[in-house]
Every structure is written in C-alpha cells, then in structure tokens.
C-alpha cells in the first residue's frame, strides 16, 4: 500500500518534470527565431508606425510628434504619391496575370519527365539563380535605342523599335516583361510540383465518363490547382508591390517618373531627402495595401477552392 502510494505520487511528478524540461528545450529551440523576429521584424515594424506620426529627419536628427500630418500631406499635397500608387498598380496588374498564366501553361507543357522538358525547365529556371543586378544590366544593354540587340533584330524584319527604357510609354512594359522572365522559373517549379501530384484516378474517371481534354482541364485541372494558383498569385502580388531592384537598376524611376513605384519613392523620401517620418507613413500605407490584398485573395481563394471550401 505504502509502496503503491509512493509510486502513484512519484509518477505525475516525474511526468511533470519531463514535460517541463521538454517545454524548456522547445522554447530554447525557437528562442533564436523569436528573438530575431522581435529584433529585426516586429521591432522595426512598430518603429515605422511610430515614426509615421513624427516629423523625423535622419540627417538633422530632428524628431517631433506631428500627429496625422504626414498622412495629410501624403493624401492632399503630394501628387507624386498618387502617381507612384498608380504606377505600382499598373506594374502589379501587368505583371501578375502574365507571370501566373504563363508559368501555369509552361508547367503543364513541361509536366512529363523527358529529356527535352528537363532542358527547357533548366532554361526557364536559369534566370532565377542569376544575380538581379547582372540581369538588369544585361537587359539595359539589350534594350538600348538603336544599338540594342532587340531593336537591331526588329530592324531586320522592318520594325523600328522604341527606345524601350527611355520612352514613358514603353519603360513600364520593358520593366514588367524582364521581371516576369526573371522570376518565371520559380513559379513554374511550384506549379510543376502541384501538377505532378494531381490524382490520376479523377482523370481516369473523367475519361471513362467521356470528358474531352478541354473539359478535363476546365473541370479538373484548374479547380484542383486553385490553392497553388492562389499561393503563387499572393506571392507574386507581394513581390511586385515591393519591386525595387529592377526599377533602381533599369530606369531609376524614370522617364518622367513613369516607373516610380511606391517602394522606390519610399527609398527617395527616406534616403535621398532624409524624410524618415514621411517615408515611414508611405511604408505604413504599403503595408496596409499588401495586408488588405493578401486577405482579400485568401478569402476569394477559399471560396473558389474545392479542397478548402
């Protein structure tokens, strides 16, 4: 009796101790990640929101609470803010469908594992591992006015190509297309993973029911790929709202601010004009836009998806 009582007593306390040490171990495992997140993500994020309510200049060192003044200036006195907002929208609307649709079609075309497809997959993936700087500089050469290879090639078939990066109407198109080609490979790989995992038995059943290839694509492939498509769309949208390197290296926001997107404008305000407070307000707006769009896409995706709906 005494023995069993003692045993009964010891067992939960040992279990507790083990559980505690396990918990401690788990905490110590995630601590570096949590600390990194607090220091380098959450901390700066909170500071950006705080700065956005300040008249803060990093060069003069001046910091004063200014309430909503930055936001008021942004919405009522800064025409360039609206221009950059529209440019960002045009960039995103131009880039996302082009990137998602072409990567989906290419993934479907390259789904079978044969030699030819592997070569093409490598070709499409090569730009992803190329340095963004090298990519932009090479395209700057290719897209020159009369001397560029693209315009020289067009001249052979009698087309007089524009000065791609220096004409307001064409600069945005050129930046979008080069960006799509750069990141296409990554989207193709994600789509390929989803496409190769599509359940064969569903297609089998559809074939028995006499469905055509087009019907199978519309009624099976597309709906089954909704979760992947949504994820790729969200990632591409976020990436294109945050585009900076391509713009900086290829057009510097020009010509006539025609490719001045929101992130590049934030850089200008923060690091060229040293207006840290104003740049922070712009960043908060960007954050709200990205968050809003992501939530909206998630909600739409849930409704469209067979798996999640």
């Amino acid at each position, binding site marked *: 009796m005494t023995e069993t009582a003692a045993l009964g007593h010891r067992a939960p306390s040992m279990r507790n101790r083990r559980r505690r040490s396990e918990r401690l171990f788990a905490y110590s495992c995630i601590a570096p990640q949590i600390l990194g997140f607090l220091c380098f993500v959450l901390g700066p994020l909170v500071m950006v929101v705080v700065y956005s309510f300040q008249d803060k200049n990093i060069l003069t060192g001046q910091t004063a609470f200014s309430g909503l003044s930055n936001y008021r200036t942004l919405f009522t006195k800064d025409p360039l803010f609206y221009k950059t907002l529209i440019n960002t929208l045009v960039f995103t609307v131009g880039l996302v469908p082009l990137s998602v649709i072409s990567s989906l079609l290419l993934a479907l075309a390259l789904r079978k594992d044969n030699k030819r497809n592997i070569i093409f997959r490598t070709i499409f993936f090569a730009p992803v591992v190329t340095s963004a700087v090298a990519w932009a500089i090479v395209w700057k*050469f290719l897209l020159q006015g009369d001397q560029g290879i693209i315009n020289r090639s067009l001249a052979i078939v009698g087309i007089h190509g524009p000065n791609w990066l220096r004409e307001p109407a064409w600069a945005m198109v050129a930046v979008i297309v080069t960006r799509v080609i750069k990141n296409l490979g990554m989207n193709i790989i994600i789509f390929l993973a989803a496409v190769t995992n599509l359940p064969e038995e569903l297609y089998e059943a559809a074939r028995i029911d006499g469905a055509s290839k087009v019907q199978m694509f519309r009624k099976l492939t597309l709906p089954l790929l909704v979760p992947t498509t949504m994820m790729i769309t969200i990632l591409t949208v976020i990436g294109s709202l945050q585009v900076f390197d391509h713009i900086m290296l290829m057009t510097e926001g020009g010509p006539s601010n025609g490719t001045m997107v929101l992130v590049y404008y934030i850089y200008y305000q923060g690091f060229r004009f040293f207006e840290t407070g104003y740049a922070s307000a712009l960043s908060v707006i960007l954050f709200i836009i990205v968050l809003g769009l992501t939530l909206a896409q998630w909600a739409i995706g849930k409704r469209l998806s067979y798996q999640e709906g």
Partner: protein
Amino acid sequence: MRKGFVLAAALLALSALCVTSGIAQSASSGPVELRFTVWTGNAAHLEMLNAIAAKYTATHPKVTVKFDTIPYDDYAQKLAIELAGSNPPDAGWITERDAPTFISAHTLLDLSRALVPYNYADFSKSATALWERGGAVYGVPFSNSPVVVFYNQTLFEKAGIPTPADLVAKGQWTWEAFASIAKQIKAKTGTYGYQTMDGTGYTDNLWETIVPMIRAYGGDIWDAKGACTLDAPEAVKAMTLFHDMIYVDKSVVPPGDQSDFFAGSAAMTLNQISRVSKLATASFKWGIAVLPKGPAGEAQVIGQAAIVAFKAGKHSAEAMDFVAFMTNKENVATMTKFFPPARVSVLDSDTFAKGNPAIPPAMMKSVVGYALKNGRILPSDANFPKIDLVARSGFDQLWQQNADVKAALSGIASSIAPLITKP
C-alpha cells in the same frame, strides 16, 4: 502567463544589451581612433591618405586614423545613416552638391579655430565660399576639379578634322564648333562625336552636362536671388543646340545607349580631371581641352570636394585638428598627385604642374590651371535632392525626338522654382 514572462525577460535582456553597448562606446579614453569616410576605393589614393595619417600619428602618438570607403553613388545616404547611428565617423569627404544640405542640417563642425596655424588665407576665395557661413568654416576643399573635354585624338586624325586643342589654339573653341566637329566625326567615322559625362548626362550627371553650356550662353539654372532662370532665352538657346546635336545631327550618344568614350565609342566627353586615370590603358591617343566658350564668353565649371569634421563624431577636437593638418600646404601638395588643389601657393607651384604623372606639365597649366582660375562651381542648394528629382523628371520630356525645348524648360522651371532656397 509564463509565455508572457519569458517574452518580457527576453526583451529586457535585449534592451540591457543595447544600453551596455552604448555605454561601452561612449566612454572612450586613452588612444583615439578617428573614423574618416571617403568614397575612393583606389589603392593608390588610400596609400597616400594612410601615409598622411601616419605622419600625423608620428607627432600625435595617441591618435590613429582609419579610412572607411563608402561607394560614391550611395555616399550621402549611407553617411547620413552612419551619423545617426551609434558609431558615427569623426571626419570625412563631402561633395559640393551635398555641402548646403549637410551644413544647413547642422551636422558639420566649425573648423575656423583649428585652421588658424595653417594659413587658411592661402585658399582661393572662390573655392572656399561654398563652405563658409558668416565667420564659420565647415569644410576645407581638397579637390578642386575642373570639368574638361577629353578627346580621342586617334579618331580626329582618322577623320582628318581639327582637334579641340587645335581650335583652342586658333581661338575658335566655341560650343557651336564643338557641335560641328561632333557632327563631322559622326559623318566621317560613324562613331558618336560626344558622350555625356560617364554616359549619365541625362540622369545622374544632368547638371554637369547642361550647366557648362547654359553658362557659356549667359544663363544659369537660378540667379543670385534664387529665381529660376532655366527658361530664359540664353538657356533655351543652349539647350536647343544640345537637343539638335542629339536628335538632328545624331552626333551624341543618345539616352539609354551604352556606347562609351573610354572604350573608343565616342570622340569626346566631358569629365573631371581625376578620370584621366581611366585612360592609362586606352587603346587610342587622347588629349584634354578646356570647356568651349559661348556667346557670353568663358564658362569653366569646377566640381569640388572638401574635408569636414562631423558634429556627431566622438572625438571632435582630434578630428578638427586632423582636418587642419591634412589640408596644410605640405599635405595639399602631396594630394595634388590626384586632386587639383585649392591652395593658391600650390596651384602656382611646379608641384602642381608636375603633380599628375598622366598629364604633361604644359597641359596641366594650360588646361587644368586655366580652368581652375577661371571656373565657377556647379549650382548647389540645401534642397538639391528634391530639385534634382523634379528636374530630372521634367528633362525626360526634353530628351525625346519631338520635344518642344522652350515648353519643356518652362515646365521644369515652374516646377523647381518653389524648391530653390532664397538667399
């Protein structure tokens, strides 16, 4: 509850770390290491600077100097961030373009008292004007570099037309003559006659490209009262000539085109004298000439850089003393090898004429010396970064085939006028 405790403890530990590191840095004693920011990464430049610093340490054993390179393109931005950080530089270089911004932001120390033993009056008045406010001196120019014309002599010989130096000798060196030889070069050799400074005359080097022409025609970007004069007839005339060179004669490397003078793909370019070093390995014979004249006569243009001491630095006294030492006559003479001096006594000496091994002494005097004595620095303003952004966007409309030069300049003038600081 416990999670909250763990989080709070982690945050506390972190903030304690930040505080202690701050204390450790501010309580320096004993030996002093000055941090000095420069934009050059050139080994020969750094060797020369380190030699000057070693001389200083020899007489001031407690002080050593560390030169930190920040690339030129991001210099002002990174410097501003470093000044706001916990380990700010004590002294460094600043270009004339950034001078008003950094002075009006009260980031620089007044060096006037430290300069007393070093005969500050020897510096040319025109060179120091930009760095003085009242009796205070916020920077000492160490590089007074004129913008000159570089030309590819081999191409001129091939085309059989007179070089810029020939036209200078005949007294016919005008911007119209410049446009004419550029056009002839294009017609006879197929190579562009002119490439703007480093090929970025339509963007980053916009002002270096347009100011020499506009001033030679009697205009400027803004006048002494801070009124914008970019749409005045003189400026319109100068810019019409340039626009015609690009789009009618097609003799200028156009916007977006990557043809490069240093690779032999253009016959002439404008650049600062320090760029002569890039010609050491050129595959062609080359020469330099002063900037052409215009209807209003001479308009040489100078780019400047100065040495300053930063208020945010932790060793102000040592920093000011080192800046003064660095710009004494002996060290200015040493730096002449790379940077044309602002000290009159050095400028008139043989040290200057023989200072740059790549340029013959006669050419050094007739081109660089002449431009320095007759030149004016580029326009600058405390609001320059904003003016630059707005102007560039407007100029992009001028850099089009069918642009209306007068209308484009009027548009730019009206948009930059409110941004110009009134004296």
